[in-house]
């Protein structure tokens, strides 16, 4: 039940009546009339209990996009329902309109179209549907809130998608499948074929040429069917904002570009998100399913404000993967976290796998290092130089363990990681 402003206004207006007829009876009569009006409204308002809600529409939307969700209101009651309806969503779901007026005749259905523009990644669940059915006099209303479950998942935006064509072109050059006649730069023997003008003479296979009358060249291709294990660190260091984006989101973007590229290159890509336990995992996805699977696995991930358990992460990895693979760890080059957590375990990991660490650096540190002018700026610059020196030292130490380190600002980390992967592939180190 709910009262309306009209009732309050009516009470306000009738307040002058006792001034002209100053008896208690006047007041009682006024109250009685108002009460009767309220009761009549409650009795005659459309029955909100006889409503049924059904939903349909989008369940996924890329962050920044708009999803449409339809709410169907079915009136099973015997009276027409004229009501104000609010489909309640969390604020970050960006649901519009806030309230709608619905007019559903008895036994019929009406559609309410909602548009959702999520402002953050993750699952957005519909909270409830509230209907307020005002009576014919407009003095009181029947109100009911009823669950109508629906979930819209806001997927990561993948802004580095624009780099994919360029990286794929480089990949085709590597494999020799490029339109230009360039010898595939691989290390894996592919096949023999007849020599054509323009082929590199160094690739002539003399033994095969001797067996036949034609000159035969060997073709090479980069290794295929290698395993790449992407590991997202969702611990406290991933919560730090670079610009206005959490470091985790930059890492995800880079992981998606690398995943898309590697799956096209014929490698198998797996994903693990870990802080103190496994937050998300994608394993054994086929080439075509990989990107959707990754996107769905990563969508609900949020940075956890706990220290990442490097030992747990390494043991999980070692247990899951027996064969040699490229482990790409997307984390932050935080001296304390890396030195105490990961560094002692690195030999164990590098003994079996090739390890690459990708870290998002903060351009703000660079700006601070370049600051000059007054005392505060110089101290800023000194602190920034100190931070950079520590980062350099850590990078050098990691490289000393045979780890590849990619350290780039947020808008360059995805292409830089893809380039690092391509050069590893070209060098045949996978």
């Amino acid at each position, binding site marked *: 039940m709910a009262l309306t402003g009209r009732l309050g206004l009516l009470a*306000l207006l009738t307040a002058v009546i006792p001034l002209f007829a100053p008896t208690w009876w006047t007041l009682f009569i006024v109250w009685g009339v108002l009460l009767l009006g309220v009761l009549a409204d409650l009795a005659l308002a459309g029955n909100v209990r006889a409503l049924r809600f059904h939903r349909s529409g989008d369940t996924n939307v890329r962050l920044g996009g708009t999803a449409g969700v339809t709410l169907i209101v079915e009136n099973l009651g015997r009276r027409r329902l004229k009501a104000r309806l609010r489909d309640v969503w969390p604020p970050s779901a960006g649901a519009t309109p806030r309230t709608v007026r619905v007019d559903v005749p008895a036994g019929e259905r009406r559609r309410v179209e909602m548009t959702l523009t999520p402002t953050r990644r993750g699952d957005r669940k519909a*909270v409830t549907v509230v209907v307020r059915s005002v009576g014919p006099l407009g003095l009181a209303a029947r109100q009911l809130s009823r669950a109508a479950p629906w979930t819209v998942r806001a997927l990561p935006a993948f802004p580095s998608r624009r780099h994919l064509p360029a990286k794929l072109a480089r990949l085709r050059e590597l494999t020799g499948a490029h339109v230009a006649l360039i010898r595939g730069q691989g290390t894996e023997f592919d096949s023999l074929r007849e020599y054509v003008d323009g082929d590199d003479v160094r690739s002539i296979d003399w033994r095969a040429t001797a067996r036949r009358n034609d000159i035969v060249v060997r073709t090479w291709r980069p290794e295929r069917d290698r395993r790449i294990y992407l590991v997202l660190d969702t611990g406290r260091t991933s919560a730090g*904002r670079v610009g206005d984006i959490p470091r985790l989101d930059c890492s995800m973007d880079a992981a998606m570009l690398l995943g898309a590229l590697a799956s096209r290159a014929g490698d198998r890509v797996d994903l693990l998100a870990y802080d103190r336990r496994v937050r998300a995992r994608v394993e054994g996805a086929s080439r075509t399913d990989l990107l959707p699977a990754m996107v769905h696995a990563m969508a609900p991930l949020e940075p956890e404000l706990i220290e990442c358990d490097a030992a747990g992460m390494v043991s999980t990895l070692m247990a899951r993967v027996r064969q040699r693979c490229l482990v790409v760890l997307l984390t932050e080059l935080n001296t304390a976290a890396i030195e105490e957590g990961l560094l002692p375990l690195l030999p164990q990991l590098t003994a079996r796998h090739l390890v690459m660490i990708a870290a998002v650096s903060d351009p703000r540190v660079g700006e601070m290092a370049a600051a000059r002018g007054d005392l505060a*700026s110089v101290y800023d610059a000194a602190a920034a130089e100190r931070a950079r*020196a520590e980062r350099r030292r850590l990078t050098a130490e990691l490289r000393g363990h045979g780890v590849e380190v990619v350290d780039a600002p947020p808008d360059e980390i995805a292409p830089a990681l893809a380039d690092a992967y391509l050069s590893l592939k070209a060098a045949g180190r996978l």
Partner: protein
Amino acid sequence: MVTQTSPPGGAQTAPAAEPSARQVAERRWRSARGVVAVLLVMVVVAVILAALRPATSPLALDPTSPKQDGGRALAELLRQRGTEVTVARNTEAVFTADPGSLVLVTRTERLTDRDLSRLSAWQVDLLLVRPTSFALAELAPQVRRREPVYGNADPGCSLEAATRAGTVAFRQSDTYEATGSATRCYQSDSGDSRVVQVQNGSNTVTVLGSAEPLTNGRLTEEGNAALALNLAAGTGASIVWLVPDLPESGSGAGQQSLGDLLPFGVKLFFLELLVAVILVALWRARRLGPVVAEALPVVVRSAETVEGRARLYRAGHARDRASDALRSGARERLVPLLGLPRGRAQDPTAAQEIVTAVARRTAYDETYVGAALYGPEPVDDAGLIALSDVLDDLERQVRES
């Protein structure tokens, strides 16, 4: 304090810079200035109105007061002319006076209901000076007060006191309208009178609309003195000048509470108003659906630790650490430019080699370069700023050489 600005188009352009205290203050002032202006205008208007209102001092028309608005001159004149003037500070003193006296009643706003009813029952002649409408209704019921007027006036009536006085300077004066037989003098343009004399039973009640003709300051103007003396001393040998003191609390007035004074209908009105307010509150209190709480992502800036360390350096005047960091950073950038292996940058044994190489490619000698790259810590903050500039200069020269 971070004073530097981010470069345009850089990834660091903060979407909504935190407003400074000054901006916040400006915004608050902008939103509040309308209200402040209205309040100021109200205060100014109130002050002007208060200043325009004629002020009555506590001793106005007091027969002992020698001030401009006092009545001492009139009292002295009356005494000189043989009229006995008795000063009464309360109504009790009036009732003990000669029965044949004239009672000059001033400051009627200080008389309580009881005073007024007893005064009207007492068989004496009254001269009311600018009475309140309340006192007028009690003491001269046939006279009703009208709008005040301003200026001098001629008698225009048969009252002897008035005709002998001629023109009188009333300045601001109340006017009266009387029903029945009454003597009406000093009429205004609209026909209302400044002085009215009526018979109340056997007593004469004279109502004077202005206190000005009686005051020390105005007694000499026009026919004021004549009017005052004639009205006051015209009938008897003695007058009682009633200047009531403020009534004591509880003496007749103010015994009723607000509730007693309010009509019943008004009480019901307020009760219904209360009900209306409760209904409006209930209307506003019922939301259309719940407030949805949502876990918000944590906002930690990645460079926060670096900024924190900069502030610590500054607070602790850590020039040694700051200069070390700046020098090693500069060496780190210089060494690849000089074509030396990167590892040499932080190697103390390679110091001479680096200094020589830098001095060769810049306009400075080795001592200067050595002091800049490996020297002691700056002695003061100005030295630290200078050091940062020197290092920048070295780096630029090497880069351009």
